[in-house]
């Protein structure tokens, strides 16, 4: 049986095979995290322009009420995760050791925090109305990038979407939130896909799931009704299988043109959490005010999969998981391959926070760096077929312009190069710095 499933696995070339570490939380049902006293909603938690607050300090807000509107088209809305009062609009801690302007909300301890469902019609929307609905719901790509979802569904003249791809690869180690959602809410996921199929005019949909989630593959297949043009594609367990261009390469053996988007091939890729958020918006009228987060790592007392209101400080989430073990030195938001470390546990859960990982010692000790011996492992790891070894050398020499000849801008910063480097060279970090230097000198805003 296992040999048979290997035969029909879809995959791409290159990539790496980190240990999965998913066993700690893979079989734990999603638990609802109770409400806490204070919530912090940073205005810049999506890619694109920051949101503009529409409330002032002192205002009373209901759970799910709009508190900030999009600052531009590539931006989205924010809603209050709780009923309570806006206490301040102030600079608060943000991942990566920096501060960001945020709306601070104090929960009303006497409010029942009930959300009254108000279903919305999704069958009679124009294309523009659908895009606006998604923006009103505040939905972003919930795999980590937090790209406003409605922008993906706004299809320019002359292009059309044939195929909806749902990204259930979850290739980041430790994370099991997408896995649990697929297992626990298959019907809602399929409803979300149906909404997308209907409103984007696509003919079919594929859910890509890595084969380390056989129960999810099985349950989804069982719940798909015969008349639904939806199939499940088992994917080889490999990082970065969940990068959208890799997902398309794996399933359709097509390459999204460099600098292009999936819609150039008539496709749109959506994270499992985002599709569920779409279903929740139309089924219940609930905007994006909570999300599923995997709490794991060797520094957590009680690893869990939690449904957490956005804006909950990490301190409270970790407290709910019985706290941290002694000697924790690193807390990560997101997965260990592309996540961000935090300097403070005051940082809140954001729309793009897929995981909270606590480590007792750094998982990757890169203190002793050796010279590059040109072993070529980074070339064999890079799923975009770049030459990371060369790029790192050019970055060290600050030859940023020359790096463009080596296609630096096609790097998606998946980190496979740094992961695979036996000389402990921080390749992707050097590339990241060089990219922002190049963007700055080009006069573009990053």
């Amino acid at each position: 049986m296992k040999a048979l499933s290997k035969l029909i696995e879809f995959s791409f070339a290159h990539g790496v095979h980190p240990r999965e570490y998913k066993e700690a939380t893979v079989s734990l049902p999603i638990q609802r995290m109770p409400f806490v006293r204070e919530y912090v909603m940073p205005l810049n938690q999506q890619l694109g322009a920051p949101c503009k607050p529409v409330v002032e300090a002192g205002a009373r807000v209901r759970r799910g009420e709009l508190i900030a509107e999009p600052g531009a088209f590539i931006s989205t809305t924010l809603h209050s995760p709780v009923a309570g009062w806006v206490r301040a609009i102030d600079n608060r801690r943000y991942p990566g050791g920096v501060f960001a302007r945020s709306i601070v909300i104090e929960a009303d301890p006497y409010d029942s925090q009930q959300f009254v469902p108000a279903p919305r019609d999704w069958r009679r929307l124009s294309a523009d109305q659908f895009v606006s609905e998604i923006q009103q719901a505040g939905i972003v790509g919930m795999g980590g990038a937090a790209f406003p979802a409605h922008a993906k569904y706004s299809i320019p003249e002359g292009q059309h979407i044939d195929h909806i791809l749902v990204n259930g690869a979850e290739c980041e180690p430790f994370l099991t939130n997408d896995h649990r959602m697929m297992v626990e809410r298959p019907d809602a996921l399929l409803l979300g896909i149906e909404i997308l199929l209907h409103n984007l005019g696509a003919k079919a949909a594929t859910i890509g799931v890595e084969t380390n989630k056989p129960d999810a593959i099985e349950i989804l297949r069982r719940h798909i009704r015969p008349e639904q043009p939806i199939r499940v594609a088992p994917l080889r367990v490999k990082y970065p299988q969940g990068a959208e261009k890799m997902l398309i390469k794996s399933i359709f053996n097509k390459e999204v043109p460099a600098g292009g988007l999936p819609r150039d091939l008539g496709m749109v890729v959506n994270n499992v959490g985002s599709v569920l958020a779409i279903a929740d918006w139309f089924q219940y009228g609930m905007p994006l005010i909570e999300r599923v987060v995997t709490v794991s790592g060797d520094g957590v007392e009680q690893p869990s999969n939690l449904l957490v209101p956005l804006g909950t400080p990490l301190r409270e989430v970790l407290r709910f998981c019985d706290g941290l073990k002694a000697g924790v030195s690193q807390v990560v938001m997101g997965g260990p391959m592309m996540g961000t470390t935090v300097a403070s546990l005051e940082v809140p859960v954001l729309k793009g926070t897929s995981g909270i990982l606590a480590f007792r010692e750094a998982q990757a000790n890169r203190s002793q760096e050796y010279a590059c011996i040109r072993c070529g492992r980074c070339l064999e790891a890079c799923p975009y077929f770049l030459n990371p070894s060369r790029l790192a050398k050019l970055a060290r020499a600050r030859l940023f312009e020359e790096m463009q000849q080596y296609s630096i801008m096609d790097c998606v910063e998946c980190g496979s190069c740094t992961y695979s480097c036996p000389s402990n060279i921080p390749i992707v970090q050097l590339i990241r710095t060089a990219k922002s230097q190049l963007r700055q000198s080009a006069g573009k805003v990053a």
Partner: protein
Amino acid sequence: MKLKEHRLKLQAAPLLKQSMTTGQTMRDVLLALLPATLAGLWYFGLGALLVLIASIAGAMLTEWLFSPAESRMQRLSDNTALLTGLLLGLTLPPALPLWMAFIGGAASIGLGKLIWGGMGQNLFNPALVGRAFLLATFPIAMTTWSPQSGPTEFFQIYASNLAAPFMQSVYDGISAATPLGLMKFEQQSTGLWALVSGNTSGCIGETSGLLLLLGGLYLLLRRDLDWRIPAGILGTVALFSTTLYIVDSTHYPGPLFSVFSGGLLLGAIFMATDPVTSPLTPRGTWIFAVGIGVLVVLIRAYGGFPEGVMYAILLMNAATPLIDRYTQPRVFGKGIKNP
């Protein structure tokens, strides 16, 4: 509920890494060379051991001497100087005067590595630079081969080993030709089993084909080795020499003899595979390997020396930057017509 006292460290992603390090790779290669090294000592006795020690000492002392004082021990601890010294020693005749082996080791590191800017910067394989230096400087000593010593003579040291520096070295009455020398100058073949087991005269580490292959297999399993390089070299040599053998079997040896004689296995498995001096891309690696194979057969068949592995590798080392430039991989999503 201890949340307050944690001091959180920031680090840029990825926060995981695979476990292999460059230091570990060097230790693996040293381990892989051990069987062939021990065989060399078994066949050639204590004299060979002294040659290896002298060569390693020359390499490590030079590395130490020319490293900045604060990073000396760290540079030695990555084992690259030890490995270069050992590799050079294994390509030397067992009766070589020790002072020459020492100078060879110093030249390997000094001219082969340090003047290029240190580890990872050199164009040529350092051990082969040392060997080329010795061959050009001491051509007679470098081409005088000794017969193997029996187990009873293990503790005998070749008189020439102890020759004083810069004096005319004295050679033992007995000397022996290598299998390749016999083939080239006397059209006399050597039995395959002697070649595979290493029971022939030659350089200290090159004689036992079997043990060299064993070391290669270990490196392959540890993923320390690009299999394309030995496969490409040995395949090309076998194919090319078969062609010559079919044309004229009295002058040219057959494929098995070609593969198992001389320094080919040592060179193909342990020297051409030096990642620093071989191309980065798979395509480039094939070009590099086939190039070495063709040059080895050409030099052996038509050159002045009976053996050509060293020059073949050095020549292809020189071509490596060029190969790299023309074999950059096709970037994902560029220049593609989707079906």
